[in-house]
C-alpha cells in the first residue's frame, strides 16, 4: 500500500511538472511579443515593467520558466490587466461557485444512478432495464450545451420560473435559497451528464458481480435481495463507480463552463471565457493552471479512496 502510494505520488509530481511547463509555454503561443499582445500597444512603461518582472521576459526562455514558477509557488499568478486585481483573487472568488455546482450535481447524480442501476441489474433485459438503457443511450448523445438551452427555454422562459434564467445568479452568502434556485438548472444539467455514465457503468458492473460465487453463497444462506445488493454486491462494484467519477471530473468542469457561460454565472468558466474574449491572458493562464492541477489532485485522491475500498488494486 505504502509502496503503491509513493509510486503514485511520484507520478503525480511528474504530471504536475508537465502541466506547469505546458501552462508556462501557453504565453509563448501568442503571436508576437507577449508583452505587447497582453498589454496592448498603448501600455505604460510601468505596466510593462511589472509584466516583465512577473514573466521574466528579459531572460532566456528556460530561465523564464523558473522565474514564473517561483512566482507561482509564492501564490503570485500575476495581475489582470483589465480589472487590475490579482489573478489569484479572481480565481478565489470564482472557484467556490464551480465547486458548489459540481457537488450539487454529484449528489443528484449518485442519488439517481445507484437505485436505478440496482433496479436494472436485478433483472437484466427486463422491461425496466430496456427502457432505462434506451433512455440513457439517448441522453448520452445530448451534449450539455443543448440540454441547458432546452431547460432554460422550457423552465425559465415558457414556464416562467423566476430566478432560474440567465444572469439570475445570487451568491451563497446573500441568500442561500435564491442561490440554490439560480444554480438548479446548471446542477441538473451536470447531474444528467454524470447520471448517464454512472448508471451504465454501475449497471454492467453489478450484473458481473451478481454472478460471482460469493453472491450465490449469500443467496443460498437466505439473505434478502436488498441486503445482498447493498452489503455484498455494491462494495466491489463501487470501485468502478468511483473510477468513473474520477475520470468524469475533467469533463464535468468543462460542462460547468458551458452552462455558466449561458446563464452568466460568475464561476471559473464564465470568467475564463470573458478573459479569453478580452485577451486577459494571465487570467486565462492562471485558471488553466489551477483547474488542471485541481483535476489531477482530485484524481489522485480518488485513487486513494478506491484503494481503501478495494485493497487488492495496490497489490497488482
Amino acid at each position: 500500500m505504502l509502496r503503491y502510494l509513493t509510486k503514485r505520488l511520484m507520478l503525480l509530481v511528474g504530471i504536475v511538472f508537465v502541466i506547469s511547463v505546458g501552462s508556462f509555454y501557453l504565453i509563448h503561443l501568442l503571436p508576437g511579443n507577449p508583452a505587447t499582445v497582453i498589454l496592448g500597444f498603448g501600455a505604460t512603461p510601468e505596466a510593462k515593467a511589472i509584466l516583465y518582472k512577473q514573466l521574466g521576459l528579459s531572460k532566456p526562455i528556460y530561465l523564464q520558466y523558473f522565474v514564473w514558477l517561483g512566482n507561482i509557488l509564492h501564490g503570485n499568478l500575476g495581475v489582470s490587466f483589465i480589472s487590475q486585481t490579482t489573478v489569484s483573487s479572481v480565481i478565489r472568488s470564482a472557484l467556490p461557485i464551480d465547486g458548489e455546482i459540481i457537488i450539487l450535481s454529484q449528489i443528484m447524480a449518485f442519488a439517481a444512478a445507484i437505485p436505478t442501476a440496482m433496479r436494472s441489474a436485478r433483472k437484466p433485459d427486463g422491461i425496466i432495464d430496456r427502457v432505462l438503457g434506451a433512455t440513457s443511450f439517448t441522453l448520452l448523445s445530448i451534449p450539455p450545451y443543448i440540454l441547458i438551452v432546452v431547460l432554460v427555454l422550457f423552465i425559465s422562459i415558457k414556464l416562467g420560473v423566476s430566478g432560474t434564467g440567465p444572469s439570475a445568479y445570487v451568491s451563497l452568502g446573500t441568500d442561500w435559497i435564491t442561490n440554490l434556485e439560480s444554480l438548479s438548472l446548471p446542477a441538473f444539467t451536470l447531474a444528467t451528464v454524470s447520471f448517464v455514465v454512472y448508471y451504465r457503468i454501475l449497471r454492467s458492473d453489478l450484473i458481473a458481480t451478481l454472478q460471482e460465487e460469493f453472491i450465490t453463497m449469500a443467496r443460498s444462506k437466505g439473505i434478502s435481495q436488498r441486503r445482498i445488493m447493498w452489503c455484498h454486491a455494491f462494495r466491489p462494484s463501487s470501485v468502478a463507480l468511483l473510477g468513473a467519477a474520477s475520470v468524469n471530473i475533467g469533463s464535468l468542469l468543462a460542462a460547468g463552463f458551458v452552462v455558466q457561460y449561458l446563464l452568466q454565472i460568475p464561476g471559473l468558466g464564465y470568467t475564463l471565457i470573458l478573459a479569453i474574449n478580452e485577451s486577459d491572458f494571465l487570467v486565462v493562464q492562471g485558471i488553466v493552471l489551477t483547474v488542471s492541477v485541481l483535476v489531477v489532485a482530485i484524481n489522485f485522491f480518488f485513487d486513494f479512496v478506491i484503494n481503501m475500498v478495494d485493497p487488492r488494486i495496490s497489490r497488482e
Partner: protein
Amino acid sequence: MSSFSLEEAELMVEKSEKGEPLGLFFWICVFWIGLNVFGAIFANVLPLPNPLNENFNAINVGPGLHHLFGTDDLGRDIFSRIVYGSRVSITVGIGAILIGFGVGAPLGMLAAYRRGRFDSFLTTIMYVLLAFPAIIATIAVLSFWTPRSLFKIIVVIGVASIPLVYRVIRTATLSVATKDYVIAAKVQGATDRRILMKELLPNIAPIAVSFFLIGVATVITLEGALAFLGLSVNPPTPSWGNMINEARTVLTQNVWLAFFPSLALCLFLIALNFIGDRIRSHFDVTEVKL
C-alpha cells in the same frame, strides 16, 4: 457523448453488451450518417440558398415552404446553414480522430506486440499525458494560439486524442497477441510485419472501428462546445455549435433557431454512437460465440 471526454468513450467501448445482431435501426443510422455526409460534401452543388445571404425582409420566419426550417435573426436560411454547418463538424470530427489513430494506433500495436522497455516507456508517457484534462488543455491552447482556424482546431483535438487511442489499441492488441495462433505464426517464422498486419490487425479492427466512430461523435460534441463558447471557427461561417451559440441571444424571439441545429447535432451523434456500439457488439467473438 453527453460529456466531451474521450475517456468516457473508452469506457463505453469496454462496457457494451456482446454478440447482438445489427438490426434495422442500425441501417437507419447508417443511412442517416450517409445522408449527412452526402449533404456536407455536395452542399454547394445542391439547390440551397447561400447560407451567408442576409435578407432583412424575412427575419425570424418560422418553418415553411419557402424556408424549410425558417430564417434566423439576419434573415439567413436555417436549413442551408445547417447543411453547410455539418461540414465543420464532420471535418473536425474525422480529421482529429484520423490524427489520433494515425499516431496512436501504430504505437499502441507495436508497444503491445514488442512489450519490454519500449512498451513501458511509451505507456508511462501516455499515462502522464492522459492525466492532463484534455478538454481544458484544448480550450487553453486554442485561446492562446490565435488566430483560430479549422486546421488548428483539428490539430489540437487530434493531438489530445493520441494517448487515448494508444491505450485502447494497446489493450485490444494485448489480448490478441498472446493467443495461440499468433504464437503459431511466430514459430512458423512469420515476419513481424506479417504478424502485425495479417494476424493482429484484423482481430482488433472491430474495436478500432467502433472506437473510431464513437471518437468522432465525441470530437463533434467537443467542437460544438468550443463553438458554443466562441472558440471554434469564426462567424459568419456556420457550424452547428456556433448556430446554437447565436440562437442563445434570441432564445425568446426565435425558438427554431436553437431547435434545428440542436436536433441535427443530436440525431447525428445518436446515429454515430449507435453504429459504434453495435459494430463492437456484433463483431465481438471473445465470449459469446466461442
